[in-house]
């Protein structure tokens, strides 16, 4: 990827982060940490990888995207707005009564949303059903599914992953957002999870989910190989792009007040210009 392209994507991701802060700030509620973390990842997917056009949002052969972590919704909304699925004006009505952009994504209201985002159970099962159905119709579309790392502790996730492997549902690509900071004395759950998925017949990759060059490298490899169920572990340890200061870094749903929103935006502007 050319350096200029990386700069462009970085710039877009930076704008997406500002959108997220404004959305959550104006709504006075909503998750902040996780959407900021996945901004680079979603920008890479929607600008470089996912075949999906705002001009024909219902195209049969478009790639599908299932968001399995509801905390990531603001990032998805911003990315879709910037891809032209709806006016950016909609972002400022996020979570409001009657708004297109509800707290829980509604695919009947908002263009570009392909699937409901479930808070219980694993989104992998929705994505797998979707992908299997497309595959049976010989539709070449791929189904991308972004999951949180809490899936590591879900028995349902592994049951479904095993089924996908057995059925060789080759048009599914799951991306597991890993935001945990490696801590001594806490067992690393990622490595055993990668191992199990490999045993089930999945291709497994890891990449830096905040590094466009790393993401490109990973997708170049997976796109050059024969398709099979694919899992990508995306490390997001340094992806927020801002320091939270008194907004708080631990609670993902800490509310921004107007003052702290302005301060965060100011910091972001400073970084963009710097």
């Amino acid at each position, binding site marked *: 990827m050319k350096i200029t392209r990386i700069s462009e994507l970085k710039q877009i991701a930076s704008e997406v982060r500002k959108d997220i802060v404004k959305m959550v700030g104006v709504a006075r509620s909503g998750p902040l940490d996780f959407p900021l973390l996945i901004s680079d990842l979603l920008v890479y997917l929607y600008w470089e990888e996912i075949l999906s056009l705002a001009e024909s949002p219902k195209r049969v052969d478009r790639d599908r995207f299932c968001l399995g972590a509801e905390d990531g919704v603001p990032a998805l909304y911003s990315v879709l707005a910037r891809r032209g699925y709806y006016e950016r004006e909609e972002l400022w009505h996020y979570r409001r009564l009657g708004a297109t952009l509800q707290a829980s994504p509604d695919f009947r209201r908002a263009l570009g949303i392909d699937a409901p985002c*479930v808070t219980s*159970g694993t989104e992998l*099962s929705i994505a797998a*059903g*979707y992908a*299997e*159905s*497309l595959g049976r119709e010989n539709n070449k579309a791929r189904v991308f599914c972004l999951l949180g790392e809490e899936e590591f502790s879900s028995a349902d996730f592994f*049951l479904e992953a095993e089924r996908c492997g057995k059925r060789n549902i080759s048009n599914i690509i799951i991306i597991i957002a890993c935001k945990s900071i490696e801590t001594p004395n806490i067992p690393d759950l990622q490595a055993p999870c990668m191992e199990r998925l490999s045993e089930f017949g999945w291709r497994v990759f890891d990449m830096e989910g905040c590094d466009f060059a790393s993401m490109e490298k990973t997708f170049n490899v997976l796109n050059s190989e024969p398709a099979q169920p694919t899992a990508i572990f995306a490390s997001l340890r340094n992806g927020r792009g801002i320091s939270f200061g008194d907004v708080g870094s631990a609670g993902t749903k800490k509310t921004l007040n107007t003052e702290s929103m302005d301060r965060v935006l100011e910091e972001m502007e400073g970084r963009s210009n710097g």
Partner: protein
Amino acid sequence: MDERTRSCTWNDFCEYLALFSQEDDFVLVAQEMDLDLGPLKDLPKDKVLISSASDSNMILNAAGLALNGKKPWIIGVSSKILSRSYSQIRESLAMPSLPVRIAVPDGGLSCGEEGASRIMTEDMTLMRAMPNMSVAIPSDRNSTRGIIDAARKSTGPVYIRLGQTPLSQLKNDPDEDFSFGGARFLREGTSVTVCTCGIMAHQALKAAEILDQQGIDVEILDCYSLKPFPEQTLLASVRRTGCCVVAEEHSSVGGLCSATAECLSRTYPVPVKFVAIDDQFVHSGAPEELREYLGLTWKEIVSAAAQAWALRRR
């Protein structure tokens, strides 16, 4: 009653549904299990999705199929599907109003031997309370077929409660309409409205014969569509009779009893008596024994109808 023509609604369901398996949007979603699927067990591979052992995953798989334009039929044991996967049904089927049909073979007391954990007598309560969900319960072969036809046309999720108890045909009109929101008259009368569904419709007809001898002319409504509820049909009947008995093989909380009482208390209050399961978990036992034990027979309907008639508007 001709014993040779008796069949359980689950077998009727499998037999009739198999006729539509060649439709483009047809997919059967199930787990590997011991259910007797009749002709459905021979479907082509591309018409079946065998999910993992997780009931939640099965519901979510079906949602994924529906997002791609399919109209899946989920089959599974009621106690597992509804209780373990309630939130998945709610979030992935009902909220987006996807055309997924859930059919359970073990409704009511028909698998009574399996015990309290398997006998789901609050299934219709759970499904009825869920926005966008249609709820239907057939009482014979014709209504099973009619409900399948209505579910095929439905654009939202549907819950169908089926059973294992052999039942006779209540009416011999193959052209009857079983659209959601409707009810069928099994008997016309002017003294008491008996609002019923499923297996209790058969008990209501027996009760009507006895009551007829006592000079009480019973009108029987088979409310196969619990949701949307056939309010206008019920009101038209109750305006004639002035009282109502509700008989269902279900908890008295949240099912047909509640739907009827809600409708009448809001629009046309009249005396209402319930023949249903009290707010309790039931013991294991043969279905017929359990029905006797829990007071779900024609005798209780006779008694309730006599009481309602005595209290009716004059």
